């Protein structure tokens, strides 16, 4: 019997969705196993249709994106009510995603720039009619409602999603691996002590040697291995978009402490190389970091 499945998008880039479509001919094997009860990108069901489903009637509910608007929060809660197994699908859902970087500012500052002071805007105002309104800051969905499963990745690869889905369809356990990107990276790693860093555009990269050993900030050593080391394989440093391995809550903090043991420089020097700690170390998971929570709390205190 086909399983009742829903795919929903909160605020997101739709990449997780596209990644599922990237199964291509593989879709022909999966689709017969699914009874799609909601998937706005593809099927013409309306929000009302979802709201009218009996509670717990969706067997697997996939949630992409994070709550940037109040409408997103509503959709997330509806999905929780209607789903037996709720899956945080992609790094936005698991950790807040890139939009979490916005937590460095208040929502008013964010709106001000976009709607009022952007260089080409000719009539600045904040849109209100029939608009849902924004959340104060981004949180990981898993902090808002409980989830049964997480599949991180920005986006998860088609294989990641297929593996998760297949496990669910067959009633098996789906567990995240306890490996890092380095474990799947083909580059030669000498574990050298790093004495200087280069920015990605600088110099010529030796394609055979570990990027970190060459002084490029590659976050493979502190990032969960699910992607198959896609970026280092094409000579590009890992930026950590799949988040930390299981058990690590604050990805950036973990990276910074681990870096401490491979570099030969003091904190001040390190700071000089990385003037933007947040963008460099917490690119898709800043919203779930301690730092973001402290900043958000402070911003709130300032305004109240």
């Amino acid at each position, binding site marked *: 019997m086909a399983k009742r499945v829903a795919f929903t998008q909160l605020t997101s880039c739709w990449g997780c969705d596209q990644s599922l479509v990237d199964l291509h001919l593989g879709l022909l094997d999966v689709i017969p196993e699914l009874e799609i009860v909601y998937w706005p990108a593809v*099927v013409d069901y*309306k929000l009302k249709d979802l709201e009218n489903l009996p509670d717990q009637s969706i067997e697997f509910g996939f949630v992409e994106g994070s709550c940037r608007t109040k409408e997103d929060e509503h959709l997330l809660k509806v999905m929780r009510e209607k789903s037996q197994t709720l899956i945080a699908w992609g790094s936005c859902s698991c950790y807040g995603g890139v939009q979490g970087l916005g937590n460095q500012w208040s929502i008013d500052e964010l709106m001000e720039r976009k709607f009022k002071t952007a*260089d080409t805007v*000719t*009539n600045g105002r904040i849109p209100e009619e029939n*608009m849902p309104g924004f959340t104060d800051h981004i949180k990981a969905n898993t902090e808002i409602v409980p989830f049964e499963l997480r599949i991180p990745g920005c986006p998860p690869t088609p294989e990641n999603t297929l593996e998760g889905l297949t496990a669910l369809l067959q009633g098996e356990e789906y567990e995240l691996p306890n490996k890092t990107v380095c474990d799947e990276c083909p580059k030669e790693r000498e574990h050298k002590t790093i004495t200087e860093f280069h920015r*990605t*555009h600088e110099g010529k990269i030796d394609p055979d040697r570990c990027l970190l050993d060459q002084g490029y900030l590659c976050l493979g050593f502190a990032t969960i291995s699910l992607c198959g080391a896609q970026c280092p394989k*094409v000579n590009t440093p890992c930026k950590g978009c799949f988040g930390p391995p299981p058990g690590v809550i604050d990805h950036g903090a973990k990276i910074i402490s681990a870096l401490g043991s491979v570099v030969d420089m003091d904190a001040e020097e390190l700071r000089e190389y990385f003037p933007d700690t947040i963008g460099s170390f917490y690119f898709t998971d800043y919203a779930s970091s301690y730092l973001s929570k402290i900043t958000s709390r402070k911003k709130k205190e300032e305004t109240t």
Partner: protein
Amino acid sequence: MTDERTIRIEPVTRLEGHGELTIKLGKGGKVKDVQFNISSTRFFEKFLEGRLAEEVPRIAERICGICPVPHLLASVKAVEAAWDVNPPKPAEKVRRLFLNAKQLSSHGLHFFALAAPDFLAGPFADPSQRNVVNIIKSLPDVGKLALQIMEYGQDLVCAIGGKSIHPVTATPGGMLNPFSEEHRDNFLERMEDLKEWTTDTVKLAKKVVDDYWDVIENFAVVPTYYLGMHYRGNYEIYDGRLRVMNPEGEIVENFPAKRYRKYYGEHVPNHSYATHIYYKPAGYPEGVWRANSLARINVADKMPTPLAQEALEEFREKLGRPTHATFAYHWARVIEMIQAVEEMEKLLQDPDIVSTDVKLSDVEPKKGNGVGVVEAPRGTLLHHYWTDERGIVTKTNLVVATNNNIGGIEKSLMKAAKQVFENKEHENLNLPDPMIK
């Protein structure tokens, strides 16, 4: 009793992004207002501030998971423009291949998954039937065709960029990884199949166009301005000047992207988080323009490759230049698919495509500002960054492809709503039998 009412469509489906539709009807079914409510946004223009400029492309491409390649490239080009950097010629060729591969997969996705269901299953079919899943089930040959075309494009994006979604290799000064001979041979080998699938798509599209001719010619036809890139009058998507065409079909502007602020206006509606971009000298809403495939086809004098040129001539013979028929977007998209395939073949045969000279090693950050523009599948995409001496982004302005069209989409929705609710025109439209029964 009053027959005034408001119709809300929540959400608008088969759309990338978040949108709702509000139609306000007054007495006697008169259409008072139509709003396309884009209900979310993420504020990239603010949170890119303070980042290392060379890292920004990897963040900014997360604006869209369907078209990350154009974002990556517009972003990299903006940094290069700010730092006065010109990547080696072979890198530019690889980037062109990259962009065309994305154009192909995106157009495949759009045509088959978002648009075709209405034509193949018919616009009055049960909503649960009008989707690509149903196409895959009911017309397996068409479904397979769609999946294979998308796969070729996405595989090629992945081969160049390391990831098919949010690829990574483009960096200020070139590409971090050369395109390998092995990949080149593989994609050239698969090219014959791709050409065959494209021909089949053209056949299918022709049938749809013939069947729905009445709709194309009569429904949601709205005169607007058009914006698109060209290179000496030729259709172009990677690097060229921008043209603005007025509703009468005259080219009224022709400018390098860096001067966009003189021509681009961004109107903030009260009912949408997506702004409406318009031709500033004409004012709002008179200057509302549209971008995307139809606009590119309207502004170009000719296509640079032979089969695409043939297709363009046929299109113009039937619809003229410019054409304001909203449904002609689908036909324009097919012309662009042909163009993408022809250009990809040419690039794959170019010896430079596997050159290892694809990255400068002496790129220096500097204080400045730069504009990067490419044509994304959904229209002209523009990133503008300001950087300080250390190469840190201090300010950005982004005009994403879709926003060029929202004003125009609203206009055509208004027209369509009037045709449906006031004139009941769809009842007289001569619609063919759907292919899926």
